[in-house]
């Protein structure tokens, strides 16, 4: 990642009752700013406006704050990233509280409103920006970027606020700042024993100018970062009191379910709602672009009404594909050269003259995210303004999209982001389907309402992980050493949404579908990776770990397959071919030690390994299974999963471990059963009975080790996912000798999971 000199711009204001409020524009790319125009110029990202003007730039300071110190000495951290379960509302406050020297028992959290200008993740700016949104930074919670993106800016903010509290205390005590220290939300003057709480100093500190580049702590002196603290949102998630979007109510609200086309893209011809008027609580139906909005007094009435409404759709004009046709179609595409994304040395020609060349075609199904809380949007549209409550991973874009549809400027749309009951990418939708639909419904209905999705709506609603095929080719020389490696990906493009193209300019190169293929880590002289973009009308979207889940499966299982053919130990060969990658090697060695790789085990116990790096983190995982084979079936029981993680500084190790465990379960669901199929355009699954996910009795034991590190934090939200399916397949293959080229593994007739 680029190293940039950074300066932040803080504005501190007094609040009623003697508190202090800090607003910040954190800077992810100060090079632009150093040479840029004066701070208040339109279109530029930073700078304190000395006198906020009533122009769009002024609002960045006025309503939005991110640290609040109240007179009773509580510190509230207002968090820009979304909480979708990963622990944002704990990890980000820990980072601020560390440098602030805040009393952790008096730190609370608040979810920020939508505002990329104020709350956007600096990560996206540091990465070089995304078109017109560069100035803002995106307020998107995706790509495992929250902690690694906000880490520096939040530390600097905490340190800067600590500095003005110290200054205020020095004034009050009439002593040098240097004679003071801070601890647990108090400024202490050791010489006299004076102790002043941050709360009592807040009003005076609000008159000070915070430093733009405050000194930061030496990591060896951290008191919070690196500690396994209890989640700050644990109480309200253990007593039913947290209001998710599904629970949120506004006065006079009606509930809406939408009857959507049975196949993607089919236009609505006509509908008959006469039977619905017999349903108690039913109110009305309305045509919206996505179908028929069914309005009722509450969810149950809306759902009962929807069941008796009949509609006619022009299915022939919609998507007609059957997923059973896709393997052949995709293999045909993969028989042709694609767009090259990596070519080392001779590239594809490196296979020439090999002693042996192996080839395999892999196929991965469509997958639904299926977060526990189905999608929902509460919206109060008043003609000239609108307020929205929704759990979103991308609140700033959802706000923008809603405002466009409602014909309002974004500042007239107040977007309240709520904590989500899971996301996995579904709540950062590039198609903006649920927010567009809710805005259209709000226009059509004209009263406060909530659009609610049932589980069936969710499973059938599209925005799946795209169907993908990979063609892998590996050549070995006379000594059995890898001399060439090729990986071709055919997948539906993720970034096709015209809206995203317009907003971000992200159309020139589709790197999403080659993730994990391009980064193939092994030291092979000739490497070639190319891609095909397939277009159809099944809406697709990133799912937790995106294409890493499919490409890393292909890489890691095919690697084992080649090594098995050459009679080599797959783990030892990884060690040999990762000598130039010390972080990979370290986690690999650590996980091998944890699992006792190479030690003798009962003959029906088998292990598989995989390794993966992304999000500035590295992981190696070993899956251990019991395989008992009969003439008919190979019965597989999952036993244990070992994970060794290098994620740089682990801000909260227990939450890192929780994310790895979570990734393992998520990945096992997809490895074992996850599959959305279509027949003549119709999605065949609808709920957890035919779209099963992992349950308690199927969950193996887990051991996770986080390697010590003081490096900048890496991401962990997706890190635990990509290795699991290949490590599992490799474990089974160690017993059966098979290369499993199709996911889910339940598609292989011989495999039975007990």
């Amino acid at each position, binding site marked *: 990642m680029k190293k940039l000199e950074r300066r932040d711009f803080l504005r501190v204001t007094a609040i009623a009752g003697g508190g202090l409020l800090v607003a910040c524009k954190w800077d992810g790319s100060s090079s632009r700013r150093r040479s840029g125009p004066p701070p208040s110029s339109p279109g530029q990202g930073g700078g304190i406006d000395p006198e906020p003007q009533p122009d769009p730039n002024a609002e960045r300071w006025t309503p939005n704050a991110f640290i609040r110190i109240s007179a009773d000495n509580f510190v509230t951290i207002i968090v820009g990233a979304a909480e*979708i*379960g*990963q*622990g944002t509302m704990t990890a980000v406050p820990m980072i601020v509280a560390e440098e602030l020297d805040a009393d952790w028992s008096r730190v609370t959290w608040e979810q920020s409103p939508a505002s990329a200008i104020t709350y956007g993740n600096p990560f996206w700016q540091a990465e070089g920006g995304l078109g017109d949104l560069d100035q803002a930074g995106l307020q998107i919670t995706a790509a495992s970027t929250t902690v690694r993106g906000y880490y520096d800016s939040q530390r600097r903010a905490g340190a800067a606020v600590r500095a003005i509290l110290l200054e205020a205390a020095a004034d009050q005590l009439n002593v040098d700042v240097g004679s003071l220290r801070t601890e647990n939300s108090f400024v202490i003057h050791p010489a006299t024993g004076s102790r002043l709480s941050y709360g009592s100093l807040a009003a005076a500190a609000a008159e000070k100018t915070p430093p733009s580049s405050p000194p930061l702590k030496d990591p060896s002196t951290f008191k919070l970062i690196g500690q*396994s603290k*209890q*989640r700050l*949102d*644990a*109480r*309200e*998630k*253990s*007593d*039913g*009191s*947290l*209001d*998710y979007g*599904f*629970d949120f109510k506004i006065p006079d609200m009606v509930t809406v379910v939408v009857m959507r086309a049975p196949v993607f893209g089919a236009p609505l011809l006509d509908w008959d709602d006469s*039977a619905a008027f*017999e*349903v*108690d609580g039913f109110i009305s139906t309305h045509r919206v672009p996505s179908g028929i909005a069914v309005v009722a007094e*509450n*969810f*149950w009435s809306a759902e009962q009404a929807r069941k*008796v409404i009949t509609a006619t759709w022009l299915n022939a004009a919609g998507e007609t594909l059957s997923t059973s046709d896709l393997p052949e179609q995709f293999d045909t595409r993969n028989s042709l050269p694609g767009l090259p994304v990596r070519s080392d040395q001779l590239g594809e020609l490196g296979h020439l003259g090999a002693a042996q060349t192996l080839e395999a075609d892999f196929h991965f199904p469509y997958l639904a995210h*299926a*977060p*526990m*809380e*189905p999608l929902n949007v509460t919206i109060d549209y008043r003609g000239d303004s609108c307020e929205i409550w929704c759990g979103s991973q991308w609140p700033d874009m959802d706000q923008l999209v809603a405002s466009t549809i409602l014909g309002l400027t974004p500042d007239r749309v107040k977007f309240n982001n709520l*904590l989500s*009951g*899971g*996301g*996995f990418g579904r709540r950062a939708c590039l198609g903006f389907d649920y927010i567009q639909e809710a805005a259209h419904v709000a226009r059509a209905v004209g009263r406060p309402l909530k659009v609610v999705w049932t*589980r*069936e709506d969710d499973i059938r609603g599209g925005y799946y992980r795209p169907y993908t095929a990979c063609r892998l080719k590996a050549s070995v020389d006379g000594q059995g050493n890898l001399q060439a490696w090729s990986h071709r990906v055919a997948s539906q493009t993720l970034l096709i949404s015209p809206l995203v193209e317009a907003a971000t300019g992200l159309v020139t190169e589709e790197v999403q579908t080659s993730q994990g293929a391009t980064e193939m880590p092994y030291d092979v002289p000739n490497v070639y990776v190319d891609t095909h973009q397939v277009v159809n009308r099944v809406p697709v979207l990133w799912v937790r770990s995106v294409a890493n889940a499919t490409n890393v499966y292909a890489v890691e299982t095919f690697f084992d397959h080649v090594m098995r053919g050459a009679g080599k130990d797959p783990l030892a060969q990884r060690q040999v071919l990762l000598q130039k990658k010390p972080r990979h090697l370290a986690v690999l060695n650590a996980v091998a030690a944890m699992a006792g790789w190479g030690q003798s085990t009962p003959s029906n116990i088998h292990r598989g390994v995989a390794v993966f790096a992304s999000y500035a983190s590295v992981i190696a995982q070993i899956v251990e299974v019991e395989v008992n084979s009969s003439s008919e079936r190979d019965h597989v029981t999952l036993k244990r999963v070992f994970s060794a993680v290098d994620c740089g500084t682990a801000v909260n190790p227990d*939450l890192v471990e*929780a994310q790895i*465990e979570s*990734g*393992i*379960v*998520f990945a096992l669901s997809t490895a074992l059963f996850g599959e959305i199929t279509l027949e003549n355009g119709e999605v065949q699954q609808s*709920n*957890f*009975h035919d779209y099963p*996910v*992992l*349950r*308690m*009795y*199927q*969950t193996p*034991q*887990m051991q996770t080790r986080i390697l010590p590190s003081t490096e900048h934090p890496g991401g962990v939200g997706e890190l635990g996912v990509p290795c699991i399916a290949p490590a599992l397949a490799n474990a089974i293959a160690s017993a059966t000798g098979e290369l499993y080229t199709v996911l889910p593994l339940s598609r292989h007739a011989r495999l039975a999971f007990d």
Partner: protein
Amino acid sequence: MADQKKSIAFTVNGRVEQPVVNENKPLLWVLRDELELTGSKYGCGRALCGACTVHVDGQPTRACVTPVEAVAGKSVTTIESISESALGARVQRAWKSLNVPQCGYCQSGQIMAVVALLQAIPRPSDRDIDEALSGNICRCGMYPRIRKAVHELAAGGFA
């Protein structure tokens, strides 16, 4: 459409309630919409995920498929009052202490299922845990922590 509304009396969290509702309406939606108890969650509507688990006369019950008339005269306990029992309060302490929740959406149902399990089997085996809790889906995958919490509770922890 046989939408007959009638008054159905039952006890919820120790209070007698008498909502006037369609007798076929699932208990979950009566709790959530009529009685404003939103701690019990909708996740599937078909008793597949367990997010709506409540106790009816002490038995774990999927409120999303239980017609409200089926609880007439009975006693319903939801997550909102589970802390009033010593066991319920211990389970909640375990949840906080072990960082069991991630997104948290399934956890009302998980906690209700765990309380019912520990009431029925104070020292459950792993197999007992599998049988009692496999009906409750956690998409964040916190099963290892739930299992650990149950074992620690059974050993007297979080008192």
